[in-house]
């Protein structure tokens, strides 16, 4: 309930009333989209709805509440805490993370200077992606990641198409590795959270539970962040989201040479698919990763298709 109030506070007065009247479970709410002069759209339980003035969900766009220019402006004021200037860097990237860990994507007219995006004005489109932590979603995979012989964990790569819950799974793996379990000692985990998705830090404090032995480097480029964490926080495990660039490769080699374990995710649909990618293919050929977790969303989001070992042999699923 408190979380709901906290979230509603970012909306303009009128939208706050409408959304507050909705009789739905906010835990199943995935997205709220505001577009100037268009009806308000929410994504609830994987379905798209419009919201009528009294807060009921409708499928007819004409019955939905329209979002006006002023409402977008007011909402932006609240999102930015009356201080858009403090979010210059975030706006340049196109999203802002707010308290509660929710991600707010924005679009409007960009201001270009040279070849760089300097900022954005006339913000007219807002997309609020609600952060949901699914605690315990890694329970099934954890036994396969623990290396009992060396009292450590395996280098792990999570492979998944977009929107299948790889970041959610990664987050829970981090939490469990960091906290430890009955037959497994917790480890120091360093997280490089380039897009504020894993920990969803608000003013440096992770809004998602990442475990008691976790250090988070927020909004830091992955390659630089990994090196930095090794130097500064001496982690036993490093976790990153969406690897794939050349610089990442160098940093990953560095991580592994330092004796750190790596947990990473990548976009892809199968082992073969990832093998054909330039950087990751190389890593896989060198048998760097010892465990692969492949996700799909056939049954539900975050469905685990299979778990493979370093050679690509299926050990579960």
């Amino acid at each position, binding site marked *: 309930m408190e979380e709901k109030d906290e979230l509603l506070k970012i909306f303009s*007065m009128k939208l706050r009333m409408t959304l507050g009247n909705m009789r739905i479970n906010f835990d199943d709410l995935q997205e709220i989209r505001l577009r100037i002069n268009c009806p308000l759209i929410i994504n609830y339980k994987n379905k798209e709805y419009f919201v009528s003035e009294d807060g009921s969900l409708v499928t007819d766009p004409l019955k939905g509440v329209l979002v006006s220019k002023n409402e977008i402006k007011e909402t932006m*004021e609240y999102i930015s805490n*009356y*201080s*858009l*200037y403090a979010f*210059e860097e975030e706006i340049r990237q196109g999203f802002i993370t707010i308290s509660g860990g929710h991600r707010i994507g924005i679009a409007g007219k960009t201001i270009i200077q040279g070849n760089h995006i300097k900022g954005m004005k006339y913000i007219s489109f807002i997309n609020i992606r609600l952060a949901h932590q699914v605690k315990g979603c890694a329970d099934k995979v954890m036994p396969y990641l623990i290396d009992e012989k060396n009292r450590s964990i395996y280098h792990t790569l999570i492979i998944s198409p977009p929107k299948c819950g790889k970041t959610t799974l990664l987050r829970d793996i981090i939490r469990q590795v960091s906290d430890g379990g009955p037959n497994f000692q917790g480890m120091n985990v360093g997280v490089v959270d380039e897009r504020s998705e894993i920990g969803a830090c608000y003013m440096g404090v992770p809004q998602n539970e990442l475990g008691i032995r976790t250090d988070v480097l927020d909004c830091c480029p992955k390659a630089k962040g990994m090196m930095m964490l090794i130097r500064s926080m001496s982690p036993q495990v490093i976790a990153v989201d969406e690897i794939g660039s050349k610089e990442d490769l160098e940093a990953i080699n560095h991580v592994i040479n330092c004796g750190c374990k790596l947990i990473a995710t990548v976009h892809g649909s199968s082992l073969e698919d990832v093998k054909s990618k330039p950087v990751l293919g190389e890593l896989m050929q060198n048998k760097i990763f010892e465990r692969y977790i492949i996700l799909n969303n056939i049954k539900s989001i975050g469905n685990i298709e299979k778990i493979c070992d370093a050679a690509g042999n299926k050990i579960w699923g």
Partner: protein
Amino acid sequence: MIFKIVGCILIILSSTLMGFYCSCELKSRIDDLKELRKIIMLLRGDIRYGNTPLPEAINAIAKRHDGNFKNFLVKVSDSLRERLGNTFSQIWAQAVEKELHITSLNKRDKYQMIQFGEHLGYLDKEMQLNTLDLYIAQLDEEIRELSETVKEKTYLYNSLGIMAGIFIAIILA
């Protein structure tokens, strides 16, 4: 006769005090402007180096500040946190109108403050700092002008008070 003398003395006394009050007000207006300038400087520092959002920055200053502007700062930062559908400039202007009675700022000062509030918040950092700099320069100018004339004006108010008292007393007597 004795009543006349007492009456004259009272008239002279009160008008003299009036003169003193006016000159004191002038001095405290300078003090208040200096105080305001300090607050804006602190705000500028927070924005420039800390990239701090306004509610936080104002709240932090309110905690450290202990003078005529405390109520004003507390009011602004509280209203900002409530998020009741007002824009920053509205909240700022309301607080200027309602919470600055105890200061000696005059109408023009308050008007300038409200105008300054209209440009806070929504621009990029560079523009934000420019706005703050401009306002600081404006305050500086005001303070300089006042300080230059303060001596003459206090003298004027004081002597005018006494003279006016004597003048009225003579006419009435």
